[in-house]
């Protein structure tokens, strides 16, 4: 059963990833991953999704392919990635070496009242990513596994996928700005692109 023997806590996991981001851009999937990344420290190089469920990995792919020298980390949840599960196949075709997709897998739809997701019933996103030809796919269940993953970040030898089993807890919400235009403009400005 998911949750049993899982000791990793989402906020601590995300904080460790964000602290090791170096120059990486971070895209977040809606719901808790957006709050987790914001809680670890806001940054103009973060682009938070508040909706567009299933789209986080593809926003990451677009950004990674637009800038092959820029490392991109997508941090999302199991439910969000399941809705865009085909995007793992699409990424597996393009194989950008500067992209990593990190799923915080608590086995539940946290935002809607903790209904079980497919991963609570044994569906394994790590195996789907592996079968989709990601260069590296990790199943992370311990601090050791997490440290091993962090050695691969920011991604330069990807695409990298990591399914991180985290405790099904709901930390206090930590909310970034909602304004999509502002999020877009600050992100582009940070890349010295014209803020249209």
């Amino acid at each position: 059963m998911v949750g049993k023997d899982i000791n990793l806590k989402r906020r601590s996991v995300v904080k460790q990833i964000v602290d090791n981001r170096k120059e990486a851009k971070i895209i977040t999937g809606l719901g808790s991953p957006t709050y987790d990344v914001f809680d670890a420290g806001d940054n103009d190089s973060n682009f938070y999704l508040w909706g567009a469920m299933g789209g986080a990995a593809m926003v990451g792919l677009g950004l990674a392919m637009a800038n092959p020298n820029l490392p991109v980390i997508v941090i999302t949840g199991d439910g969000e990635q399941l809705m865009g599960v085909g995007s793992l196949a699409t990424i597996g075709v393009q194989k950008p070496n500067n992209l990593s997709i990190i799923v915080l897998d608590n086995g539940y739809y946290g935002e809607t009242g903790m209904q079980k997701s497919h991963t609570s019933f044994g569906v394994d996103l790590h195996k789907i990513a592996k079968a989709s030809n990601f260069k590296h796919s990790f199943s992370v269940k311990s601090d050791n596994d997490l440290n091993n993953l962090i050695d691969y970040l920011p991604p330069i030898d990807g695409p990298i996928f990591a399914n991180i089993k985290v405790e099904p807890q709901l930390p206090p919400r930590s909310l970034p700005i909602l304004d999509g235009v502002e999020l877009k403009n600050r992100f582009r400005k940070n890349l010295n692109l014209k803020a249209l």
Partner: protein
Amino acid sequence: MITDNNWEKNLFDIIKKHKINFLPYVPDAGHAKLISLSEEDQSIKPIVLSTEEEGVAFSGGCWLGGKKSVLLMQSSGVGNCINMLSLLSNCNFPFVTLITMRGEFGEFNSWQVPMGKATQGCLENMGVVVHKATNPIDVISFTDAALYSAFSSDQQIAVLLSQRLLGRKEW
């Protein structure tokens, strides 16, 4: 000169003129020439998608990184994109899609008809401007205008390519 038999090549040239970097697509017979031309061209990369809404999210990410893409799909794919289009309107992402129509003119397959009828309404309800092209000259001028407007004034624009352009699919 634009003639009936070279509009697909002219369309590709317009896309190149606007320095489009990526063509994410779910294939359609009407886009086949564009896809094969991009496969042979170093400056435009085709990206095969598993479902059309991936291309909407891809376009947003691409623009975040300062590059341009055009999504190619058929009208049935518009239904798959509806909620993902909210990403574009929330963030004012520039977006252009070229949509080959089914279920609209000379259709043999009744299963294509409901989404063909709903295509324009779905797009407009989600804030996408729609231009309908029924002849080769309009395809080129509408696409040229769409690419200019979208990327200079942050609009979301669809150019619908009528079945009249492609001729009846004979079975």
